[in-house]
């Protein structure tokens, strides 16, 4: 009898990133029309796009604001890194849906699509005659999701929301920060990204419902409420005690020990709540008395006890290097890790082996090394194909391949300004300066330069 494969070999084989393009995509055949801008809406569609949905993104003449939002006002090959991060594998159309002819084209696409997503002001699509009422008339299977800060109805509908506003209005900022200092915003646009994720979750759920019943639906999703949902025990605590949850730095008020500790050469995140874990930690520290005294986890959580325990652990970690603590955690079965920064992740062999970081060769921008959205699916893994694109870059492909308009008709729509491409005066609309006029074009009929093949 052949020896059974080790778990390590089994999982390596099941999730081998070299097999990525030999596997199915779970959302293959699902067409999504993205009428979104900035981060939240585009991110929701990006998650779907990396798992195989065909996402067509519509931009107005000025372009998505993220073409102009970038760290230190830095641009790379005319591309805005702020635009790149939430836009992969998409098809890019320049078209304003307020234009009557554009609206007709859009409705033609809706007939052949599965999902429409918007994060405009609530009611904006309705003003253009593109609300779910109209869309379901021409395609009863359509799923339409609208996302905004406060949703489509209620006392605060119509109020402007940004990521930072959602973090603060939802209560996240008030509980993030050091005990004796002010509130701190997440280092990233967390309320945008995670709301986008829950939007994607509700869309795939609606797709599952439609697969059973053939029925589409309208989804109203609220960004600020999404932040509220992700604050675990905050609300029940307020309800039962009348108190506001306090800021506690890196200390976890519901798990002890769980905190960030100083080592001789950096910081280590450490947690050990289970009995064996805490026992293991105390053993590693050589403080068996600590375990004896505080073996009951609920007793450890009492404020006075927790402060004493965390202080003892901190005194111990100061005498160690980060790696030593990690190794002791491996040995004694508690949790300890360094704090990873971008550089660590970029070079991590672990993340590359897992396909969490993927490399691809973009026809416009050259070699790219980027994160690919989780989780890892053994049969239908997510993948990166191409990066963000100049404004209107895929007009020809979308209207010719999907709507069957001949190239000269597409040209006419461009001449009539129903659809449009990048403005050469605005660098972050444009392809890289050294672009050959052909690379990256899907279905290149009317490019002026010869294809090198």
């Amino acid at each position, binding site marked *: 009898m052949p020896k059974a494969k080790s*778990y390590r070999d089994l999982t390596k084989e099941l999730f081998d990133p070299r097999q990525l393009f030999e596997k199915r995509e*779970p959302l293959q055949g699902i067409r999504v029309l993205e009428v979104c801008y900035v981060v939240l809406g585009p991110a929701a569609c990006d998650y779907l796009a990396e798992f195989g949905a065909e996402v067509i993104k519509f931009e107005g003449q000025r372009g998505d604001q993220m073409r102009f939002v970038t760290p*230190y006002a830095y641009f790379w090959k005319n591309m805005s890194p702020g635009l790149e991060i939430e836009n992969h594998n998409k098809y890019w159309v320049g078209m304003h849906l307020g234009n009557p002819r554009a609206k007709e084209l859009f409705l033609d696409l809706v007939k052949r699509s599965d999902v429409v997503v918007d994060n405009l002001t609530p009611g904006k699509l309705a003003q253009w005659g593109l609300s779910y009422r109209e869309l379901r008339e021409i395609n009863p299977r359509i799923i339409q999701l609208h996302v905004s800060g406060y949703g489509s109805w209620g006392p605060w509908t119509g109020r402007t929301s940004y990521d930072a506003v959602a973090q603060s209005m939802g209560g996240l900022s008030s509980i993030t920060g050091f005990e004796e200092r002010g509130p*701190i915003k997440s280092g990233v646009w967390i309320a945008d990204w995670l709301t986008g994720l829950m939007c994607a979750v509700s869309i795939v759920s609606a797709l599952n419902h439609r697969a059973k019943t053939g029925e589409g639906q309208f989804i*109203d999703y609220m960004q600020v409420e999404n932040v509220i949902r*992700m604050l675990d025990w905050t609300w029940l605590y307020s309800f*039962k005690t009348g108190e506001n949850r306090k800021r506690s730095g890196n200390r976890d008020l519901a798990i002890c020990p769980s905190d960030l500790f100083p080592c001789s050469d950096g910081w280590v995140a450490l947690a050990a709540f289970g009995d064996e874990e805490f026992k293991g930690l105390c053993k590693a520290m050589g403080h068996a008395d600590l375990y004896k005294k505080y073996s009951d986890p609920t007793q450890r959580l009492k*404020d006075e006890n927790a402060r004493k325990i965390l202080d003892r652990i901190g005194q111990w970690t100061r005498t160690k290097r980060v790696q030593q603590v990690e190794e002791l955690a491996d040995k004694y079965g508690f949790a300890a890790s360094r704090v990873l920064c971008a*550089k660590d992740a970029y070079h991590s062999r672990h993340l590359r082996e897992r396909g969490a970081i993927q490399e691809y060769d973009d026809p416009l921008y050259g070699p790219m090394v980027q994160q690919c959205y989780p989780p890892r699916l*053994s049969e239908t893994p997510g993948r990166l194909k191409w990066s963000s694109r100049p404004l209107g870059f895929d007009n020809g492909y979308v209207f010719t391949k999907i709507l069957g308009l001949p190239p000269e008709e597409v040209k006419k729509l461009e001449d009539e300004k129903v659809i449009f491409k990048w403005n050469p005066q605005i660098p972050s609309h444009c392809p890289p300066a050294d672009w050959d006029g052909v690379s990256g074009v899907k279905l290149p009929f009317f490019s002026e330069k010869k294809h090198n093949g």
Partner: protein
Amino acid sequence: MDDKTIVGMAKDAEFAKWAYRETRPEDVLKKTEALAHIRVLDCSYGSFAGLFASSILAEMGAEVIRVEPPGGDLARKMSPYGIMIKDSGLAYISEARNKFHITLDLSKEEGRKLFSKFSAKADVLIETFKPGHLDGLGIGYRHLSKKNAGLIFCAIHSYGQHGEDSEKHGNQPGYDIIDQARGVIMSITGEPDLDPELPREYKRPLKHGSWMGWSAGGAWAAFGILMAVFDRTRTGKGQFIDCAPPEGLLAISNYVMQYFHMTGEQMPRAGNYDYAVFPYTYVECKDGYTFISGFTDPNWTALCEIMNRPDLRAQFPTIKERLDPHNQPTIQHEIEKFTTEYTSDEILEMVQDYGRKVDKKGTVVTGRLESPNEVLGREHWKERKTFVRCNDPYYGELLVANSTFKSMSKTPGRVKWVCRPIGADNEFIYQSYLGIGNRRLKQLSDKGVI
């Protein structure tokens, strides 16, 4: 509900009324559930990533069975200051919605046999043990999928099921603090590195106040599970899902990875600043904190006019100067000199007054930083049923966040019950799934299997 409440500040009142009719909270329970045909076994242990994932599925109508060891999941003890309501902490009660609760000891042979039988009837399995733990017990993906080719097996762990770090650190349990630390975002969250006025001891990484590693990890897991369910309706095949929560944070770490790829440089912690939009920050005011933004040139001019600081406008005229991380602490402190003189409401009033001026130069946005108690009191959240309040027969008066999927017009998410005591559904689930009646149940209980 009256029209005024429904329409609120809507630009299009008719749309608001239509949207209300499609998604009325009163109608939620009359509508169908998207995942009513899906059975989920959640045997996560000490992990709110697993619990959050199964909460999402349960809100959508899946039949979720929580498999806890006799004595209960460690997660029941994770509660602020150790506050317990009967057998459960506040966190667990908030994330046990719509789930059946049974006990089963997987360390016993008989327990594992029963577990195999359950999993043969399940569509989805969620686990959060150390990588390879269930496999070693003979109840891993390879074993269970033999009997159930459609099984979607989702393993959640900080280090993942494979890869160099999983092999190295696979003996460590997964935790939120580890997920946050390995998710890169923590390295750039916290007080600003480049502020010379900030005491040194605060220049260190900071986690989100809530379990953001676990929530994000759970949401990613649910996303993967739902896609696998969708794929299965077309192919009949199940699959193995490997969800490492840190990757769920890394994947949304703004542009730090892109910026490193493009420039070879890393970005320092920005604090409440933002290197791509500024001012776009929290500032101290007389009665707490408030958000304020005036990023583009016209909006910055507007903010400087409100503060009556033409000198600031002149000193930092373009976004180049305002996005320079060395200038941002100065700009922040100068804005705070103004805002600390007023309450958040007074600042809002000034901003609104300015917005009504005919010769205004741009738009400034402001908004008070809300405390949890303030959030709980707001009318908007009351009308939208953002919180569920109930009197549970066992746990008493409770309040938890409602499903955020409750405004799906055909299949709204919902909370049917909040929490169940340890093993409360043993009788029903063992009987209906495995035909095990009370007498056999008693025997199993005597042997410590359940």
